């Protein structure tokens, strides 16, 4: 279901039809390009629309089918890519001025996997600059608007990808999630969004924000489509030392199972702050799973509440190092100056937005001699605590349910100049990244103003199959 209420066939159905020759990939692409032409000026989901490349690719796929070949499990499926994933010869901006004019000479591993699976990339989507933000307002190219209500944010940082799927611009989109950047916009845009286990999907070619937390994952209109996508892009990549060296079980198959006997955990010491309409939907979700045969158990994750603080030391620390390479020497923006050191300064001052600068400063400080132990070092200890607390909870429960976002989509500018108010958007999503565990947001009805509400399903390391089973049960409960 898209934001305007029209129902579209699932990616799985489209792929099946294209593979059989019943549907032309060219027609699939034209439908989506038409949707983009109609609403993109209003939504601004994309930094770059790749109309001609998508048409060429569709023609290749149709020719391949006509020749009796199988273009793959995503044949003819349209995909939008967050603009922090490298695409050869196509600008990859991270919605930052600092990467002005840069075209990667290589494709990210996920891009290669999508191509090999027959997917068609329709464009590169807008984001908060370098994935730092929760509203996509921090883009150097202007914000993306929520397709459900264009006076509201789509969430962030993968706001463009979430909006693209919600607006029917593409069937699936890829985002990256460092502290909630897939799940929170998925919730605000009423789509499914998955942050897999750290190492489930290759990060090679994903422009780093915080390397130990970043993970690529899908946005889709259904749990089934998200499973299909993750089945394609999951797996070991020899180019990413942190990718898990094993094959992952099929999630498409996992969601065929129900949730009978599944233990669903309610975190009794969850930080407060969720709006009543969000809390109401979460309660309904527990009820739905109970009705579907699951058992609800109370668990405690005491360190959950420290996640936000630890995150805002660890993520900026890594970012301060990851973003140091944007120095004007080799690529992207360069503002000339009298000497090299001055050139670094003026280039970075001109190229980065305020939020990115704030986090670089924060992270540099946290790692500095004399402060490391008190800040970064302590944050690492908290991170370990959070991981251990979750592991204990997963002894008692197979999955945990929480709100994804404390609120429905908010109005542009409503967080004003208060960065901390914006940071609180990720209260419920951040601890999962620190633990390295998977999490996903599933649309579960509407809250205030009829806006979508997402429920977050969390699970232990590599427990994607059980997480997807719970998500699929929630989805079925709504239909």
């Amino acid at each position: 279901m898209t934001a305007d209420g029209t129902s579209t066939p699932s990616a799985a159905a489209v792929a099946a039809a294209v593979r059989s020759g019943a549907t032309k990939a060219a027609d699939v692409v034209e439908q989506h390009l038409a949707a983009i032409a109609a609403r993109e000026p209003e939504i601004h989901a994309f930094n770059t629309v790749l109309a001609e490349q998508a048409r060429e690719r569709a023609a290749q796929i149709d020719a391949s089918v006509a020749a009796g070949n199988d273009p793959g499990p995503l044949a003819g499926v349209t995909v939008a890519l967050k603009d922090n994933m490298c695409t050869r010869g196509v600008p990859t901006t991270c919605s930052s001025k600092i990467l002005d004019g840069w075209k990667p000479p290589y494709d990210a591993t996920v891009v290669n996997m999508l191509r090999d699976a027959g997917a068609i990339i329709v464009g590169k989507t807008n984001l908060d600059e370098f994935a730092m933000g929760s509203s996509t307002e921090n883009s150097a190219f202007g914000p993306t608007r929520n397709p459900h209500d264009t006076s509201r944010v789509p969430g962030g940082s993968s706001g463009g990808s979430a909006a693209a799927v919600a607006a029917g611009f593409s069937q699936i989109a890829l985002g990256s999630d460092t502290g909630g950047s897939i799940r929170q916009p998925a919730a605000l845009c009423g789509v499914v969004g998955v942050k897999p286990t750290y190492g489930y999907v290759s990060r090679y070619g994903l422009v780093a924000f915080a390397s130990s937390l970043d993970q690529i994952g899908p946005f889709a209109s259904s749990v089934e489509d998200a499973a299909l996508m993750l089945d394609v892009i999951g797996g070991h990549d020899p180019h990413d030392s942190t990718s898990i060296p094993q094959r992952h079980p099929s999630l498409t198959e996992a969601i065929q199972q129900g949730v009978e006997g599944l233990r669903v955990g309610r975190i009794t010491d969850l930080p407060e702050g969720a709006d009543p309409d969000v809390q109401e939907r979460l309660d309904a979700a527990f009820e739905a799973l109970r009705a579907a045969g699951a058992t609800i158990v109370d668990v405690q994750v005491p360190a959950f509440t420290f996640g936000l603080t630890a995150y805002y030391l660890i993520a900026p620390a890594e970012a301060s190092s990851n973003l140091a390479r944007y120095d004007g020497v080799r690529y992207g923006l360069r503002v000339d100056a009298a000497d090299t050191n001055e050139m670094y300064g003026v280039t970075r001052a001109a190229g980065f937005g305020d939020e990115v600068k704030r986090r670089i400063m924060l992270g540099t400080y946290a790692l500095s001699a004399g402060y490391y132990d008190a800040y970064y070092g302590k944050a690492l200890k908290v991170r370990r605590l959070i991981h251990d607390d979750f592991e204990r909870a997963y002894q008692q429960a197979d999955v945990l349910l929480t709100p994804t976002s404390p609120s429905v989509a908010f109005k542009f500018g409503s967080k004003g100049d208060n960065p901390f108010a914006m940071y609180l958007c990720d209260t419920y999503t951040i601890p999962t990244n620190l633990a390295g565990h998977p999490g996903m947001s599933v649309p579960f009805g509407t809250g205030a103003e009829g806006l979508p509400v997402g429920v977050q399903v969390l699970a232990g390391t590599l427990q994607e199959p059980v997480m997807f089973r719970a998500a699929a049960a929630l989805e079925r409960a709504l239909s």
Partner: protein
Amino acid sequence: MSSYDGLPGDWELVVGLEVHVELATATKLFSGSPNRFGDEPNTNIDPVTLGLPGALPVLNEHAVELAMRIGLALNCTVQPSTFHRKNYFYPDMPKAYQVSQYDQPLNVDGYLDLPNGVRVGIERAHMEEDAGKSTHVGGSGGRVHGATASLIDLNRAGVPLVEIVSKPDIRSADDARACVGELRAILLAVGASDAKMEEGSMRVDANVSVHKPGTPFGTRCEIKNVNSVRSVGRAIEYEARRQIDLLESGDKVVQQTRHWDEGDGRTHTLRSKEDADDYRYFLEPDLVPLAPSAEWVERVRAALPMLPAARRARLSEATGQAADSEAVTSVVERGQDDYVLAVAAAGGNAARALVHVKEAFAEQGTSPQVPAADLAALSLLEVGGTLTATQAKAVLAEIVANGGGDAAAIASAKGFEAIDTSSLECFVDEAIAADPDAWQKFCNGDGKAMGALVGLVMKASKGKADGKTVTALLNQKKG
């Protein structure tokens, strides 16, 4: 090689070395680009080497193996290790951080025995990546100060290095030189590096301080840009005297990094401790810990070749020459000790073989052309008294020129025959009679006069007389 004078007064020199070694791998430490010296600038590059957004490092296993060879050859313990990021801006460092081992290096706690028996502790030998190379043009002397442009070659960026850090156990410039020489011999022996100081594949920094024995170590200065074994001694000697001059005139030594200028034979201030960067080290999140299995370590240890110290001991035992004699050290350095042993095994005299190989085989490689049996035969004629040392040398020259030959036949062709003692006595008597003046002086203890008499005997015997025997006869007659 000249020896350095001791330090004035009762000052004692204290030196520790930091030696960077480029590993002889086919590819770089974290990417598949060639590790090759001398190629066209910026040709051995790829997304990882360039530090492009999204690129990730993958550790080169062969580099780890070579690093372990170095560690094991230096009697280190190989331990589980990690990589850190060392953050600082420099135009030829594409990521603005260097990946290096920090608090958990691969090799720790070893030692190196110098040929003269001095033991130098090895604190650590850790892995890291090299930076690129900057060439400053338009200024004076290739320094960045005053240059109009800087050219950057990233072929060297990402080349695997091992940094070997010694304990401050060295007490003389000669020992420092010997330590560098021994280290170089070990690196070559284990095939870890081509260890060419002039090409920069082995770079030596020396931490130099002076103190009076029994008092704490003095403030040290780090000397960089020492590009040959010879300059190691010169730079340390200069720096020690500079520090003593300061201290003796009531000044203090300021901790700083100093640049050795080969041209003027002095060290110059590069930067002082106050200018030191805060490197904000933190664990490299893009890599996983490196913990070589015990089996791997043992496999590497078992495959180590015989090391120079053991080769010297073996040759010393076979020849009766001291292990740190010039003949033994130079022949082992050239890798011709196996050949000397082969001559002995062929029945030859090892001591004479050593002398001949040292003197006449400098231009030959590890496998001299001359069959070991030919040199064995020559050495037997020599020790049997058939040939004098001078005659043997002449015969060998011909054998070497022809790539082999029968020593006896060549000697006979040259008319080299042993002179019996009675004819030699006749020659001596004739010489005394021919120059009674010289005889008188010789009897009065004038050494020069003896030379004149020996010369007469040589002339009369057409060079067949053995100088030593003639001298003995003269002394005998003097009574």
